[in-house]
């Protein structure tokens, strides 16, 4: 069989999220160099704040301001930062209990090496130069040997009101993958690049799948036998596309159709060209057209044969 194919696959999405009253106040506060927490019914101060008590599920709205210095409650030294992490040089991940808070915030600590970090050490916020209302407005923490000891700062009431509050965040996420379509689809794509269409037959129900995915979804067994189908086929159904897709250079309206290649057990889909859009019909006989060095047919065009009888393709609609 040909080499299994792989291709880069990038998934990127700007997740846009709204903030409730507590998260809005917290993130706006960071923009204004103010760290807010929320007080629970039993008097504990949660930083970062949440809208509901994690123990009692009671609604929490009692905002308080805490210090910008704190104590490391645990840490881990990261010798090789990954691309999207806050610091490009080796750093420590830290949980920091800010002065006046009872819970810890996860962030990073800029320190020269692991020997400079210990649980219980005093640290302070280093603010980002450009702040937008996000947890990354804290650029990182830094050692604060000279700062006042824990216990001297107490949480003080805060309205949570700021001018121009941040009500939402946009968090871009980008992940890079190497997509591998597997044995069956690699074979299919390799054949297609050679202008041949190869399906796979189910050993049990004898249906020929195009494109093959390696399994018969009816029988739940591997499709094993390679079967060359087409190149000609029959339009089984179609639709007329009237909206131009972004980045696709095809004049509208055009026809997108289900095409049952001769010998295939189900229809695949493709664009119909070489005929006015309003003359495409069920039963139209078509053949693939490759353009340039394309690895798959650009479109299908009429062969000029008489239309296929409905009975010949009715099972493949």
């Amino acid at each position, binding site marked *: 069989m040909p080499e299994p194919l*792989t291709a880069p696959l990038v998934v990127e999405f700007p997740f846009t999220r709204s903030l409730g009253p507590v998260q809005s106040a917290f993130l706006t506060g960071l923009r204004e160099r103010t760290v807010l927490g929320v007080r629970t019914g039993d008097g504990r101060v949660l930083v970062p704040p949440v809208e509901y008590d994690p123990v009692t599920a009671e609604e929490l709205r009692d905002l308080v301001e805490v210090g910008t210095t704190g104590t490391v409650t645990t840490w881990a030294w990261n010798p090789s930062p*990954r691309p999207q992490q806050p610091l490009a040089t080796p750093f420590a991940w830290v949980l920091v209990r800010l002065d006046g808070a009872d819970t810890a915030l996860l962030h990073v600590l800029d320190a020269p090496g692991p020997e400079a970090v210990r649980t219980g050490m005093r640290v302070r916020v280093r603010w980002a130069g450009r702040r937008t209302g996000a947890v990354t407005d804290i650029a990182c923490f830094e050692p604060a040997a000279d700062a006042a000891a824990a216990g001297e700062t107490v949480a003080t009431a805060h309205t949570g009101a700021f001018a121009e509050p941040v009500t939402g965040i946009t968090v871009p996420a980008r*992940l890079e993958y*190497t997509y591998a379509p597997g044995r069956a689809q690699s074979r299919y794509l390799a054949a297609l690049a050679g202008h041949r269409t190869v399906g796979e037959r189910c050993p049990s129900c004898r249906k020929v799948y195009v494109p093959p995915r390696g399994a018969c*979804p009816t029988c739940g067994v591997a499709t094993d036998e390679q079967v060359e189908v087409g190149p000609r086929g029959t339009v089984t159904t179609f639709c007329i596309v009237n909206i131009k897709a972004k980045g696709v250079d095809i004049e509208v309206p055009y026809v997108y159709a289900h095409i049952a290649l001769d010998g295939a057990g189900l229809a695949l889909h493709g664009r119909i060209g070489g005929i006015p859009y309003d003359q495409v019909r069920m039963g139209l006989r078509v053949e693939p057209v490759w353009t340039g060095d394309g690895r798959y047919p650009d479109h299908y065009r009429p062969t000029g044969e008489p239309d296929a009888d409905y009975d010949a393709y009715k099972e493949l609609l």
Partner: protein
Amino acid sequence: MTTATSPQARREVAIVAFAQTRHVRDSATLSEVEMLMPVLHEVLGQVGLTAGEIGFTCSGSCDYLAGRAFSFTMALDGVGAWPPISESHVETDGAWALYEAWVKLLTGEADTALVYSYGKSSPGRLRDVLTRQLDPYYLAPLWPDSVALAALQAQALIDAGDTDETALAAVAGRSRTAAGGNPYAQESGDRPQGAYVVRPLRRGDCPPVGDGAAAVVLAAGDTARRLCERPAWIRGMDHRIEAHALGVRDLTDSPSARLAAERAGAFDAPVDTAELHAPFTSQEVVLRKALGLGDDVTVNPSGGPLAANPVMAAGLIRLGEAAARIHRGESRRALAHATSGPCLQQNLVAVLEGEDR
């Protein structure tokens, strides 16, 4: 939930078959369904059933591993989902799919269930991919990876005097030595602990990154007895979750695992075997403490996730390995545990028993 009905009144359900792939670093030559299908055939073959004879099918996987939406629908091709079957999917480890199937059988809506899960970590960079499951407001923007979060927990344990690097290395060594008897394991035998990945965790404290799949068959009552010589009866199962903010939790303990175990009946009688889904050595320390496991309990005789950790299948494999040990007569009463999320955020515990006949 398990205390709501007395065990006598409840329908008996057992794991009657288990199969898994040989777990590998990279299975790029196979699609998910191509990787999964032999496991489905093997597990059904063990009980002589076809997919069409199964009453309920439930699967576990994760779109973020594949980088594609609804990726599990492609894997369904391997089951034979036409004519329409009764089917469900959980977007997490297959252990939770097994829980759903167990409930389905308890209700009497089905007599048999096929549960499978799979994960291919090879297409992406797992440490980065897993950051996307975190709280999107306070954590995800910092991209704290799975090893970093586990390392914070490990340091907390060291600070508390619960373990040290030597003890963690011993967990790694014991696990991978045990995996020498497991032909499906990805890493086995004597291995150096290696350099720090994120201190205090070294390479040996971390699970291998790999691809794999697993499947089990559940059956109720006499159907189970007919399909299996020595069924692994599920005496109880429960799952619980911690507060999601890491800074709220005591990372040296796992109250959710303890509560799940209690509700599953794990403390009603001693267990002889425990299959723990502890991908990091330090997490075994937490779980042993939370579950009260003594040195007389055989922990992870399969090698556990430190020997093979196909994400989304590794928890289901713990239930399968524990059941298989009962099937073989090597265990009478076993605890199986699965986890999901950072630092043992979510925990599922099942108690399995063999019947002396």
